[in-house]
């Protein structure tokens, strides 16, 4: 191994390390759309990424290249943090702030404040509806208007406005004044408010400045919502993979169940079960919430299929039959619990890939709403494995009600 060979090897390694960090940083910018998280990811690229690639210049041994690279390194070291800080300061000044519009609706106030009573039956519900004036949001409002909310429930419409960056020297009071809702928005909100209004319900509205998903999640926490309702745009396959929608972000970060509305009614409800904790949580929700009393609930459990070439062997056949029987028992058990709570329910069992089977049944039986429990995988597992919930959310046509529960 010559000295030059070693130097060349080290140089190549440093070069590829720099490019790897740049790739990771870029990927991070795709998966985390919130501005501060993007700044964090971008710093990987504009910091160590660039610096390591320039460091690899040492391996060339050419003085002119090394000198020029050293100058760029010095410059990036000095100015990199300045650029990041300038963007971060502007983003901080424009962070979501919420302030209430005037309350519209009946003057009745709910007798008690349920706060965040997770999945137990709320006597009155606090529902946050995200509305931005788009067609999909109108569909969400229609669904909310069609559902049978318990008397005394509090519905709140939240709208995110882009908001504006105030001058750097302003105070928080000026910031609040600068981010008031645009004038045309109020009349649109009035229309939506009228459609959900009903006697016995408290309806008000709130606007917040900033990114829609962040505004919605913040308001859900502040409001103590039991349920968040959002609309969702239909996106193509490529778009679903390279981006995240507001609905997906809200599902990820909301402190309560999220209803992604894509149909205007909730007459036929599909409830996939697999015996796991999250699907138990979904069954629990349907038995305790009074909301879906009038709906027909179809319980579906999907048993795993064995591989084609294994099917010939007797023990794998027996195993498959056992699994099928187990999943059928699971479905019937869920149906019994639902019927015990006064809901109309029936069971079916399929085999195969859960996501595909759920979508097939939903299409075949004109399902309006799928109620899904999800473990809410985070980090690398979500990225690599995906989840059934994410697939249903991205590609299925019915509305989806996502219930999160951590596996013990």
């Amino acid at each position, binding site marked *: 191994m010559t*000295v*030059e060979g070693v*130097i*060349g090897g080290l*140089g*190549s390694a440093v*070069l*590829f390390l*720099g*490019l790897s960090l*740049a*790739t990771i*940083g*870029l990927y991070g*910018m795709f998966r985390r*759309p919130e*501005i501060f998280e*993007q*700044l964090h990811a*971008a710093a990987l*690229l*504009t910091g160590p*990424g*660039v610096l390591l*690639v*320039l460091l*690899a*210049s040492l*391996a*060339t*041994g*050419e003085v*002119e*290249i090394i*000198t*020029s*690279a050293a*100058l*760029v390194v010095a*410059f*990036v070291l000095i*100015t990199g943090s*300045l*650029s990041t800080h*300038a*963007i971060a*300061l*502007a*983003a901080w*000044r*424009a962070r979501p702030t919420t302030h209430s519009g005037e309350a519209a609706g009946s003057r009745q106030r709910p007798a008690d404040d349920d706060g965040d009573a997770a999945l137990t039956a709320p006597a009155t519900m606090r529902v946050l509806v995200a509305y931005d004036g788009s067609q999909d949001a109108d569909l969400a409002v229609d669904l909310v208007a069609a559902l049978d909310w318990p008397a005394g429930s509090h519905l709140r419409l939240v709208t995110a406005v*882009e908001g*504006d*960056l*105030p*001058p*750097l020297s302003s105070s928080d009071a000026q910031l609040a004044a*600068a981010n008031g809702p*645009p004038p045309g928005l109020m009349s649109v909100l009035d229309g939506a408010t009228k459609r959900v209004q009903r006697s016995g319900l408290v309806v008000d509205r709130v606007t917040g400045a900033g990114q829609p998903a962040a505004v919605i999640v913040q308001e859900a926490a502040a409001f103590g919502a039991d349920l968040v309702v959002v609309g969702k745009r239909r996106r193509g396959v490529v778009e679903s993979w*390279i981006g995240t929608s507001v609905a997906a972000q809200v599902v990820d970060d909301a402190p309560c169940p999220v209803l992604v509305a894509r149909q205007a009614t909730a007459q036929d409800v599909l409830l996939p079960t697999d015996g796991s904790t999250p699907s138990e949580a979904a069954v629990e929700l349907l038995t305790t919430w009074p909301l879906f009393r009038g709906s027909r609930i179809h319980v579906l459990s999907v048993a795993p299929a064995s591989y084609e070439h294994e099917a010939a062997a007797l023990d794998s056949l027996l195993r498959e039959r056992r699994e099928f029987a187990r999943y059928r028992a699971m479905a019937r058990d869920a149906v019994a619990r639902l019927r015990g709570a006064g809901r109309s329910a029936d069971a079916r069992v399929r085999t195969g890939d859960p996501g595909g089977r759920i979508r097939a049944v939903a299409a075949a039986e004109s399902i309006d709403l799928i109620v899904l429990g999800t473990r809410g995988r985070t980090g690398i597992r979500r990225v690599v494995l995906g989840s059934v919930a994410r697939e249903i959310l991205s590609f299925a046509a019915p509305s989806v009600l996502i219930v999160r529960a951590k596996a013990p």
Partner: protein
Amino acid sequence: MRPRGTATFGTWCADVLPDLVTTVAFAWATLLLLVGGVLLLRASTSLHRLLALDVLGSIVIIMLATLSFLNGVSYSIDAALALALLSFSATLVTARYLARRDRAP
């Protein structure tokens, strides 16, 4: 170590930092550039676009550095230095400008 006078400018770099490595690195950097372009198109607010442009500038700096390793010349990195200067000033000025913009009607 071989005395510098006995090798030509180009082959000396080629010995120490193999061509294959730098070609692969350049192709990789080009891929990152395209991905960065998608990031720019996806950006939802002005600040996101600003950050995406800053990142694209850094990716081009990486590309220019790799290009200079490939060709064994130093003027590509001088171009990278100029780009770094301009990108930094642009980011700073744009961030301040966005902060002083009047409210949209």
